[in-house]
């Protein structure tokens, strides 16, 4: 098995600080599905683009690093035997048919520290 990061690209993240369970239903459902079938090993939902701050050189700016129609709305880690299997799982993300998409990248290495689990805010 290998691990793949799936970066979710969407117009914006649904995970606003005041998001209601309804706002997040689609995301949660999909996430539950992947946890249940054992393919998702870690997941992080990011807050909307307005919350982003970027630094390039000495300049600190408001907003995402790349000014584009889509932002990274979140990312998760999949375990899959090969790229085709990872693409098949990642392709099931509802965002793919909702004006956004996903990018699948093999993971080189990484770790989650003791205090790394953000839980639900």
């Amino acid at each position: 098995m290998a691990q793949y990061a799936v970066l979710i690209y969407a117009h914006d993240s649904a995970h606003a600080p005041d998001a209601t369970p309804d706002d997040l239903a689609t995301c949660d459902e999909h996430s539950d599905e992947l946890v249940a079938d054992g393919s998702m090993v870690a997941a992080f939902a990011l807050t909307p683009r307005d919350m982003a701050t970027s630094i390039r050189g000495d300049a600190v700016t408001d907003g995402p690093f790349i000014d584009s129609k889509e932002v990274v709305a979140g990312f998760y880690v999949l375990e899959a035997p090969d790229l085709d299997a990872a693409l098949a799982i990642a392709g099931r993300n509802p965002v793919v048919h909702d004006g956004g998409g996903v990018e699948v990248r093999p993971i080189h290495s990484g770790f989650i520290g003791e205090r790394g689990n953000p839980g639900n805010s």
Partner: protein
Amino acid sequence: MTDAVTVERVIEDTHRREWARVLAATVRVARDLDLAEECVQEAYATAVQVWARDGIPGNPAAWLTTTARRRAVDAIRRDAAMRHRLPLLVDPLLALPAEEEAVPDPRVGRGDDAADAIPDDRLRLIFTCCHPALAQEAQVALTLRLVLGVPTPDIARAFLVPEPTMAARITRAKRKISTARIPYRIPRPGELPDRLRGVLAVIHLLFTAGHTAASGSSLVRTDLVDRAVHLARMLRELMPDDTEVRGLLALLLVTDARRAARVGADGRLVRLQDQDRSLFDAAALAEADDLIVGCLRAGLPGRYVLQAAIASLYAQAPSFEETDWQQIVTLYDRLLEKWPSPVVELNRAVPFAMLAGPAAALGEVQRLERDGRLAGYQYLHAVKADLLSRLGRRREAAAAYGDALALTHNEPERAFLAEQIAAQLKAT
């Protein structure tokens, strides 16, 4: 003892015909594309000496495969680090440790008995090289390198890029295959149609790149064309039931059958209406015709079958004047249903002009021109120029030929267009 010339001839022949089979079967053991390639190259080098001394084996491909696989096993045993490299190309069905797989010793037999034991993994190799996770230019380069065994410098020359650039492109693609774990397997039935389309596109692109070299002085880069046809034949052998595979082979055969007639003795481009039909390759046309008829009879022809059928009607007519324009236009209509593309619409305008007259066809071309998607497509301007010229609007024709010329880099085509401009201006 076998004389060196014979050995060399057999090796060259085996290299051309069997490289893919030998490499594909070696990858299974080596589980690393670079190691597999290295072992196959060494096997060919060993063959030069051993075959001259002991005679040519009954099944050269099996001998080479056995030798290459044995080398791969030795290399993995020797180099502990190799075992810890990324286990490439993981397919549960293939994932036997190399040691457990029976690799007969080539020194024992002459390779004849081993023939049955050598798996035919060529389809796996082809689908891996043409995986959609690789850029198409990388797919093309990898296919030439790994499936056809073309040396990297030759690939670089064929695509007019510096050798280090091509080498880097191939290395990058191989690295992505192992890092991202692009599997060494034939896609599942559900994915197959999509993935096969990608493979066919790579073969077609290879052919087109050779057929009308994008720039430079020769209209046909023969070697690329031959390689593409060879690959289409290989795929047909491996997937004999797929009509689109047969259709692509037929399309390449028909198109290439006109090779000798496309360029005059002076190296200049000859238009279809002026081509000497006795120069067409009748055997290739007949083979293509058989394929096309079989596919059409099977029903629901796809894009390549229809393109082949159109090309075949053009080429098989006794003369340009006697071409069955109505049938060609009908086939274009069916092709447009399968493959709605402005290029197909443009190509349809040519037989349509023969059927409905140049004025009606010009209307179609102008509609395409307004659409804008073909603005940078040289043939839009060339077709428009030809229609204008037939309508006697020679100044406009000259201007349109000029637009085509500005977009064309192939020397014979440039010369042809320049001549047309001169002829139009002279006639005004």
